């Protein structure tokens, strides 16, 4: 994957200075492929004798947001993990479909996914910049230093900060997670309780980000109990728990 000239131009574009700490969001990168839709049917997950959920079905389409809701402990994060391909369902099917109708094999899902979740952390001993550099390198992407710095600035972090992530507040760490999810310009984005730990203006900023990701034709899946986040989606899957 490489950044197109359009993307490079967007990144080098000067942001007009404003009093608002969080820049007015705009599309960061255009999505790479023609859009990926996720469809899952009759998905169930059981751990030995404990059943997390029995039969869940739904779909997430490009240019839309799917919202997964349910009481605490109903398995929202588990379902998210299954949809990312990190967990195998006990039964049921999850399929990633390209625009041309071809199935994407499971080992390739990771390339097209960005995830922000409380159960998935970034490296605490590294700085924000080192984290982004690592994720870019390990994905085989050659992203220039300037682009990393621009991305960090977009999410509201200081790229020159040398303290490791361990010293970050939860809100700052959350922003870094969002940066990491957007780094490789994925077609599919998963947000698990992404507003948590963000202050009100950060939450506004996140909403703008999510809406613009949807506008760009990406597929967004939100797992949340936040009333505000629930309004961002057009489709709904409710877990009974």
């Amino acid at each position, binding site marked *: 994957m490489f950044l197109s000239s359009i993307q490079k131009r967007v990144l080098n574009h000067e942001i007009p200075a404003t009093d608002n700490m969080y820049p007015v969001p705009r599309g960061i990168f255009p999505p790479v492929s023609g859009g990926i839709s996720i469809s899952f049917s009759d998905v169930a997950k059981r751990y030995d004798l404990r059943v997390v959920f029995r039969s869940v079905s739904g779909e997430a389409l490009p240019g839309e947001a799917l919202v997964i809701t349910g009481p605490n402990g109903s398995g929202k994060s588990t379902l998210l993990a299954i949809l990312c*391909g*990190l967990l195998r369902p006990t039964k049921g099917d999850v399929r990633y479909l390209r625009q041309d109708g071809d199935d994407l094999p499971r*080992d390739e899902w990771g390339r097209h996914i960005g*995830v922000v979740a409380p159960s998935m*952390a970034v*490296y605490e001993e590294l700085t924000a910049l080192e984290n982004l550099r*690592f994720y870019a*390198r390990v994905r085989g992407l050659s992203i220039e230093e300037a682009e990393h710095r621009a991305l960090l600035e977009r999410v509201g972090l200081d790229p020159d900060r040398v303290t*490791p992530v361990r010293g970050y507040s939860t809100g700052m760490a959350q922003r870094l997670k969002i940066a990491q999810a957007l780094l490789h310009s994925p077609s599919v984005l998963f947000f698990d309780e992404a507003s948590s730990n963000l202050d009100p203006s950060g939450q506004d900023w996140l909403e703008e980000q999510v809406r613009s990701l949807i506008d760009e034709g990406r597929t967004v899946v939100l797992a949340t109990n936040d009333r505000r986040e629930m309004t961002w989606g057009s489709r709904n899957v409710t877990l009974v728990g």
Partner: protein
Amino acid sequence: MSRWLAEALAVAAKDLRAEFRTRVALNSLALFALTTLAAVSYTIGPYRLAEEDRPFLLSVLLWIVIFFAALAGLDRSFVKEEESHTAPLLRLAAAPTVVWAGKLLYNLVLIFVLMAMLAPLFCVLMGFEIAMPWRFVAVLAVGGYALAVITTIVAAIIAQALTRGALFSVLSLPLLLPLLIIVIEGTTAVATGDLASYTQSLRAIVAMAGAMTIVSAFLFPIVWRD
């Protein structure tokens, strides 16, 4: 191919950088090795063992220290990823063989650093005379590699289990015992200057290292990605 290597090196570099900042695994390895070495040196020293027993017994002691130090520190590469919850994002970002190669490289660095520190110290403190010093290095290098390969795949397995600490030793030991027997034989051979026995042992270690490398490379994606 080179892209794969670059990605694997990125994983190894990240682990080494993080390790250098916290030094947890290095401390475990070094502390264990030095404490045991001190105990052995104090109780046995260079004079207690009879001349004819020295090559064999000193080989045994050296490798026991190395093996147990390895068991104290080499599981960290995978266990830390799971415990800090950084594993899921790594699973999404990196190809499985890249992760395996990177972690193996990291474990190799740890083991070789340990050996570089321990072997000379051991020889000096225990009066271990080696007839074929370069071949001794060869046995250490290949034996250390085999040790790293086996412990890497076992670490990957136990990282996904519940009771990690003891389980790492329990699972590694049956797989490491044959290796231990052969490296001891090889080290005894280099100490006494027995070329034939050395060659035979080295061949066996290389065969074991090769077999475990291939099998690990095949099985790791299954363990990592389920």
